Structure formats: C-alpha cells, structure tokens
C-alpha cells in the first residue's frame, strides 16, 4: 500500500483549507471564439448566482479562433472552485486558470492585472490646470482636449484607476469608460 495515505486525518487528499472568507479571484478562460460563447459564460454566472466584478474578452489567437476571457469574481473558496469547474464543463471552453491561485502557488501577491480607462474632465481655469497636473502625476496621457476639457487615457491596476477617478471628481469629472481587467501570470511560462 502507498505510504502517504493517512486514513485517520479528516482531509487526506489535495484539499484546500476550508474557509468561508470571501475572496477575490481573477480567472482566465480560453474559449473558442464562436457565437454565443460569451452568453454561455455570463449565463452561467447569472444562473448560478455567482458574482462578476469585471469581465474582459477579446480574440487573442486569430489562427485558432481562440478568445481569452478574464473574469474577476468574488466568493468563498468553495464557490470559486465551483465556478472554475462549472466554466470548465462548457463545451467550447479549452482551459480555465485561476490566476490568483497560480500566483499564490508561486508565492506572489497577485497576478499581473491592468485595466485602461478613458476619463473626461471638463472645466476651466485653476481646476483645469490641476486636472492636467494630476494627470501627469498618474502618468495619464491626454488623448483629446479643447479649452474646456481633457480626455485622459490611464492604465494601471484597478486601485490606481479608482483613485484617479476619485481625485478627478471635484475637478469636473464628466464621463468614464473602462475596459475591465486584463491579466497574465508572472514569469516566463504561458498558459
């Protein structure tokens, strides 16, 4: 018989710690880019009552018609494991990777996560100058301007974008468009 078995212990096999703590995880889902595939994914989330904090999708391998969906979701570890398996069960899904778990396994804080936002700020005088100065400080680029407005393009972690938007509020924030999170694993390996 195998030496590793330990029948006395309550958990003996690759089981994660039981925890009811709500966690935020970033999942990467590689799918066939075919009609309805996104509806399958989001229908799964709404039908089973899972959360979507952010969802990004685009074809990433044109020759193979593969798209990459990046989903940021929250739930207990048991729910997140369920989400992963439920996604994997969809026929056009090639692979589901929990980037947050992968990062933890590699002793990293988080996977690489970036999002892009376009932020329109209107105003004149001192407020307008202040907006421009802060845009500089956040390494935002001005991509459109008149004497009465700027449109900033800003890239970064979600927290940085949130902060930038909050700061722009009193300076004449008019409109925001965000891409949602794109994410990759750190290191030389690909999925």
């Amino acid at each position, binding site marked *: *018989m*195998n030496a*590793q*078995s330990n*029948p006395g212990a*309550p*958990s*003996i*096999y690759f*089981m994660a710690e*039981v925890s009811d703590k709500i966690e935020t995880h970033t999942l990467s889902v590689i*799918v*066939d880019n075919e*009609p*309805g595939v996104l*509806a*399958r994914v989001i*229908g*799964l989330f709404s*039908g089973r009552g899972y959360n979507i904090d952010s969802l990004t999708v685009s074809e990433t391998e044109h020759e193979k018609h593969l798209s990459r969906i990046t989903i940021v979701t929250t739930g207990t570890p*048991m729910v997140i*494991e*369920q989400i992963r*398996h*439920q996604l*994997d*069960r*969809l*026929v*056009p*899904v*090639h692979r589901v990777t929990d980037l947050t778990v992968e990062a933890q396994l590699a002793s990293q804080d988080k996977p690489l996560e970036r999002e892009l936002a376009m932020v329109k700020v209107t105003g004149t005088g001192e407020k307008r100058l202040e907006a421009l100065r802060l845009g500089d400080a956040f390494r935002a680029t001005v991509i459109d301007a008149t004497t009465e407005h700027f449109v900033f393009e800003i890239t970064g972690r979600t927290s940085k974008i949130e902060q930038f938007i909050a700061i722009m509020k009193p300076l004449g924030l008019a409109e925001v468009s965000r891409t949602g999170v794109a994410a990759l694993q750190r290191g030389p390996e690909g999925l």
Partner: protein
Amino acid sequence: MTREMTGAEMVIQALKDQGVETIFGYPGGAVLPIYDEIIQQDGLEHILVRHEQGAGHAAEGYARSTGKPGVVLVTSGPGATNMVTALTDAMMDSIPLVCITGQTATHLIGTDAFQECDTVGITRPCTKHNWLVRDVDDLARVLHEAFYVATSGRPGPVVVDIPKDVQFATGTYQAPTTNPAASHKSYRPQLKGDAQAIRIAADLMSKAKKPIFYTGGGVINSGPQACQLLRELVQLTGFPITSTLMGLGSYPASGDHWLGMLGMHGTYEANMTMHDCDVMICVGARFDDRITGRLDAFAPNATKIHIDIDPSSINKVVKVDLPIIGDVGHVLEDLVRIWRASSLTADKTALKEWWSQIDKWRARKSLSYRPSEDLIMPQYALQRLYEKTKDRKTFISTEVGQHQMWAAQFYGFEEPNRWLTSGGLGTMGYGLPAAIGAQVAHRDALCIDVAGDASILMNIQEMSTAVQFGLPVKVFILNNQYMGMVRQWQQLLHGNRLSHSYTDSLPDFVKLAEAYGGVGMRVHKPHELDDAIDEMLAVDKPVIFDCRVANLANCFPMIPSGKAHNEMLLPDEATDEAVANAIDDAGKMLV
C-alpha cells in the same frame, strides 16, 4: 465518405450513421424538408407524439431504458419551447438526448418571423451544449459532434437548431470520425480515475469500521459493466449499500447488502447508516438536497470518498475528503483490481458489529403501513403490482409525487435501466411518454407507468400515440383524487389548509382510456386487485388502470425538510390513522 446531399438528407444520414433506429417528433413548418426525407426512407422509425414535451420524455424513456441516446425532432418556435421542460429534465438527470429543432430561414432570424424563437438562447442553460447551424457544410460535423457530446462524459441533452434554408441547401456530407474523443478541440471528459486516489480509497475502505456505499444514477449511466463491478465490490467488501432514486437497480433490491433507498423518503436503516457511517463511498451521486437533509448534520463523522465523472459535482454542496474524478465503470474496475491485487480485506469484526446495528434499524420496519380490508392502500397496490410483474421483463416509469416515492420504496429493482423516473426536475407528466419510449425500444417487455391522478393528466394526450403505434403501455394510476404530495406538505407545513390540492372534476379514466382506443379498468377493493392486475397484464393494448386508493394515505418514512438523517418521521409516529376514516364523502366535504 463524403457525398453531396441536402441538409435534410444529411440529418437522416447522420442519424443512421450514428446508429439511431427511432426518433420521436412532431412536424411543423420549419422541419418540413426533414419530414419529407423521413417518409421517403426505411430504417429510421418516427414516432409521432401529440405534444413536443411528450416527444422529449419519450426519448428520455428510450434513452434510460436502453443506454442509447434518445432523439427528438421538432419544429421552430412553440415546438422548441415545448421541449424546454424535457431538456431541463434530461439535464438534471444526465440523460443523453439529441434534439433537432427547425428554425426560420437564416435571413429571417432576428426579425420576429412566424414561429421564430431564439432556440439556442432559450435552451442554453438547459442543455449540455447547443448549436445553430448556419452553413450546410457544417451540418454533418455538428450532428456527429452533438451525439458525441450528448453521450460521453456526464451525459446530457443537446440541441441542434437548423434553419429551413440550410435544410434545403446542398452541401458535402461527412461520415462520423472513428475517434471523436481524440478529435474534439476542447471537450475531453476524464474517464480514468487517479490511480493514487483509488489506492487511498481502497486503503480507507479496508480500515473502515462503519462503511456505506451511497450510489446514484451515475452508475447506471456508466453502463451494465459498472453495475456488475459495483455488485462485485459490494460482495468483496461486505459493505452495506444504499442508492438514490436515480440509482435504483444498479444493485439488486434482493441483494443481501441492500438497505433500500436513502433520502427524504428513504428507509430508516439507509438514512441511519448514512448518518453514523465512518467511511462513505459515494459512487455516481451528487449529494442532492433530497438526499442530504440538513447539511451541517450530514454524516458528521464520515470520511467521504466521491467518485464522479463531473468535476463540478465535487464539493458542490458537501465537502468531501477524497474526490476521484472519472467514469464510475473505469474507477470501479481499478478499485476492484487494487482490492484483489493488494489482498485487502474489510475489517470483519467491525463490520459484524455494524451489521448488527443496521439490523436493529431494520427492525423498525420503516416502510410499514396499516393494511385495510375495505380500502386499497397505495403501498399494497404497489406490492401486488410488484409480485405480479417481478418475474417478467418489466420497465417501471413514474410521474412525480407520492406514487413515485411509493413505487421507489415498494417496487424491487433487480436490474439497471428498468426504472424511469424524473428525479432532479420532478416533472409531472414524465411517466406516460417515458413508458412509451421504453416500450418502443422493448416491444416484448412490460412497460408500466405508475401514475397519480393529477400527474397523468399533464401528458395524457400521449395515450393517442400509444394506441397509434400499438404500444401496450399500462398506466397504473394510484387515484386518491389529491395531489397527494402537495397535500402532505400542506398538512406538514401549512396547518392542513389544503389549498388547491384536491381535484374536484377528474375525468372518468375508464371512459378516457376507451375514448383514446385503449382499455380502461377500475378497482375499488383490495380483494379485487390481484385479478384486475392479471387482467390488465393480459391485455395487449394500452390500459389505464384506475386504482382507487385510500385518499389520505401519506408517504412515510420522511425526513422533514431541514432535518437530519437521524430525525426521520416514521410511519408509526406519524398520525395517519385518520387516513382510513376520512375517505368517506362527508369527510371529503370537510377537507
């Protein structure tokens, strides 16, 4: 083999190449080209139903009784939406179903055309996968893929939606590939279980003092070989075994180690054994809420081993200690081999003690009921039906409700695939079409729908199908004039206020049978029952058997919802003595 043909021809050719002999369907505008091919060929039998839902359940009955996929052909719009219940039913119970729907022509899609609906959108959450085929050159490939997806891994229903212009268009037909598993891009179910995990399972089992096998529909889906291996493993280990509603028949009810069904209306011994066990081997079951009862008190001291082909079944509701992902048949084969090769033995002393405890639970006789000389007790009716039919090749289907639970409790299944019931979705109206589907596949067998007076009316129109195709199904109605299970819950939960659970104007079932061209029978008294059942079995036509039973009998034992396995309500503790007294007309008025 590649050939030029129309889309409609491809449908027929693909079905034949997939070994399909029978399809269930209903024509309509958007499938006329396919129906035009059906009438011009031999070899593919079409059973015309009376309602698309009936086609779906008939195909489920066909699939469940044969192990082969059931095939349905319906039109667009209402044809497709009428299929939704059957698709959901098949999804919940993992029944392989291939449903072909017609669709309005591609240039009309999205215009709210006549009989247009978003079939793939509507059926997306109730199918394993679905396809809208816009190009005739994709059609053959998609149809073959549909069969592969429906039947492999955890089986389930699939839909192929074919616009009418694609049915008319000419394209290239491709024969099925010899190895669809290897050629599929993304869908590859895992069949072999992890060898290390199986070894650990064997080790856990050999050290168990209070083990139990908890088996489910997955054993039956895996095939007769899996059932044989399960029986072998039970014999080798000497462990007790229970099963879910869906798994009945995988281990014989007459077997020495059989505890009866578990769960809400399972036996006392099955539920107590589950509650007190130290090692639970869950084989192809999914810890449904009707099985577990109160989750935080579910088998609190057990090390749980879970064998399932679907990774999403693992840890869905109950955290298990040892998951083994794989096909039940493959995993059991390895488990039996390892058990033999390592000369493992069960802990005989502990097992002896365990069995003597189980015998004490058995002695409570949790399925007992108070017999009556005046009234047919529903349990008695099923016991007599069982005695009269057990030596024949019999398939039992059911509707949903008290009669379903009594059938599960009192009809002993010796073989897999003989028991057809709607477990997960609980679809009233399932039983008659399912019996028809089984009868189509097994012309010489006895196919009985154990029904309730309420459920049977949900798909009664299929009597017409049975008569047309000479399918001598027997509808055995336990008629208590109530939606019995609804009433039981109202008694338990709603202060006996029986809101709309009494059916005031039931049809005369004898005349109804005759109106359809079948035979109707009615029995009121227990002493008439045996002869009447004999008479029913002798008729080579569809029969509706109106068995008038004690109106207020309730289904026990029962785990009230929100209670644990060891908090069962037993028949001798449930005050059902009112049953025998309350059935007179005056009593009915008071209800």
